[in-house]
């Protein structure tokens, strides 16, 4: 599994990227077909003229390849797969649908017809079924807890940057490590990068200071980590498991694309209680499945919405539902980019931008960002620059711990998750009959409490 992330970067292949994008559409066809009990004949090619109503599965795209950003309900199109419509795209007429939230890259199932050949008139947007939650057997659960059903597990989640944009001051981090050891005392800490953010303005201006407590000054950013940051992190009590998940903005990795290979613990010079996981990563703590992804989908997803019942809802809820629905941690395509206007020559209002950063998607490998075995995680953690939050959406706990330190140096936040042990006798688990006998839904959302705490 982790080996799959170890592909060589910087070799995008357009045909391989397209193969994945095609598969993505096709993989939802059987899901829709089964969920709505449709037959193959109910599906048609929405790009060609027809008098009858059909079902179609495709990707939401802008109706012109040169449109970037600012989309509205009149400027969307549906892209078909190679099989379903020879990859053609057709403009969508959404006037007959009252409530929707759509975004570029979304796979949708639509009902409607194309009477004139010019557009597909949508009469219904079929909601995609949510994937199943993971389950455990009685045996699994008893083995995990071994009778110790009184122990609440405490897990801390933090997300970088860990230094302000105005200095390389690590006082907050040192203070936090101290608090972890003496008062918080968690079982595990999940730390998301960036640990050293290559987009930090001090790096751009060459303004790296001398580090006063270091004998031989670091000569590279990697050495800033091993000589300055690693010694602080290594102070974390060795009984606490620490999981590190990289960011594509981390200077500490040569793998600057998403999905992203894990850090190398030896190169970072960290002790054995540190575990380095890929981005995204799905792992278990006891029975609970944690899905962790470190690309800011909450910031990047630009929805086109219509209707009061949709727009009045919390935006984080809508986006979380999209992620669960689409069964992948970053369903936006093309990925977000951040650029800076450097000049606009007044003659032809031509603007020149400098590229700063982005989602850095390695499209051909996006299959690694899909939910593992098509299960929803019990807890989904996706850090964002936006306001920290913890919400229960479709019985999944969704957490954005917030940044550890704000760019200005103001204290940020972390999330503290307390999960009561799974206990077959206390009624908090739901029994489900499965082909393999009786199994239990974990219902972590019923047993957990999440606090968002200022660092």
């Amino acid at each position, binding site marked *: 599994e982790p080996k799959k992330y170890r592909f060589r970067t910087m070799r995008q292949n357009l045909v391989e990227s397209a193969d994945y994008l095609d598969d993505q559409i096709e993989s939802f066809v059987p899901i829709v077909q089964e969920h709505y009990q449709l037959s193959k004949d109910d599906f048609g090619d929405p790009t060609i003229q027809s008098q009858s109503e059909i079902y179609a599965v495709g990707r939401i795209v802008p109706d012109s390849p*040169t449109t970037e950003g600012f989309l509205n309900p009149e400027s969307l199109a549906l892209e078909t797969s190679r099989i379903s419509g020879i990859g053609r795209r057709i403009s969508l007429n959404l006037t007959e649908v009252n409530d929707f939230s759509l975004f570029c890259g979304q796979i949708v199932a639509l009902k409607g017809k194309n009477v004139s050949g010019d557009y597909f008139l949508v009469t219904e947007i079929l909601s995609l079924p949510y994937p199943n939650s993971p389950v455990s057997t009685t045996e699994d659960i008893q083995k995990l807890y071994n009778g110790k059903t009184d122990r609440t597990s405490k897990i801390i989640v933090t997300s970088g940057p860990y230094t302000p944009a105005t200095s390389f001051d690590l006082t907050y981090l040192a203070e936090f490590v101290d608090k972890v050891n003496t008062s918080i005392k968690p079982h595990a800490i999940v730390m998301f990068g960036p640990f050293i953010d290559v987009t930090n303005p001090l790096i751009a201006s060459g303004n790296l200071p001398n580090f006063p407590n270091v004998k031989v000054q670091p000569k590279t950013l990697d050495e800033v980590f091993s000589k300055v940051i690693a010694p602080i992190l290594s102070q974390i009590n060795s009984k606490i498991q620490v999981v590190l998940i990289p960011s594509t903005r981390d200077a500490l990795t040569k793998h600057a694309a998403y999905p992203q290979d894990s850090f190398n613990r030896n190169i970072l010079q960290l002790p054995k209680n540190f575990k380095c996981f890929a981005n995204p990563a799905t792992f278990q703590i006891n029975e609970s499945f944690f899905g962790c992804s470190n690309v800011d989908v909450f910031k990047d997803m630009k929805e086109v919405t219509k209707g009061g019942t949709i727009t009045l809802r919390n935006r984080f809820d809508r986006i979380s539902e999209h992620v669960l629905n689409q069964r992948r941690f970053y369903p936006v395509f093309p990925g977000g980019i951040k650029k800076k206007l450097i000049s606009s020559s007044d003659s032809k209002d031509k603007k020149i931008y400098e590229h700063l950063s982005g989602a850095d998607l390695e499209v051909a490998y996006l299959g690694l960002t899909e939910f593992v075995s098509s299960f929803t995680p019990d807890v989904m953690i996706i850090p964002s620059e936006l306001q920290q939050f913890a919400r229960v959406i479709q019985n999944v706990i969704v957490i954005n711990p917030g940044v550890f330190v704000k760019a200005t140096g103001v204290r940020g936040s972390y999330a503290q998750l307390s999960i009561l042990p799974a206990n077959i006798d206390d009624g908090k688990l739901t029994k489900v009959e499965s082909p393999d006998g009786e199994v239990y839904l974990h219902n972590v959302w019923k047993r957990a409490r999440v606090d968002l705490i200022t660092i």
Partner: protein
Amino acid sequence: NGIDTLQPLETTVADIERFKDSSALELTCPNCANKFLFGGIIASNFYTMCYNGLQCKNCEHIFSPLQITSQLERCIRSHISLYYAGWLVCDDKTCGTVTRQISVFGKRCLSDGCTGVMRYKYSDKKLYNQLLYFDSLFDCEKNKNQLLKPLYHSGDIDYPISSLNESSIKVLSEQNRDLFETNRSVVQKYLSDCARRYVDLGSIFEFMRE
């Protein structure tokens, strides 16, 4: 395992030709915020390589090694990020569509009726050459033998007023060897992951299957 046999690519192309589309490395002086292009141990109106490192001509600040390597690394990463932005361009001159949309038939142009072929605007070859260019700037042998791509041409506004003689370039290359090796290690970190550096036999023979 024959299919995984790795071999270096394009080692014979002359650097000046190979780097003709590579962009220069811009450095900012941490002390006076002056920005200038760094082109190795060459004559420049903005910086000198002295025996103890890189010095800003405007304010005489001598860069610490980290003040150079961190800017080099940031510059490499912004190139990689631009590469991953995945801009495509249509090769039909009358169309020339530039987009980040990818058709499920990758190479197909999304403009109505256009039969052009789409390709990545920032190709992996260009990125690979860009990294090799950065590597060459800190290559002592290339500096000594003055094999670097020139930053300026006579007539440029910034064309250096003074010049550097061959023997001082040789001496300065040796005096800055450690500093240059440290910078090269930063470039090598990324070159080592750059898939273009290796070619498997499968892809060499790709054209036979098309």
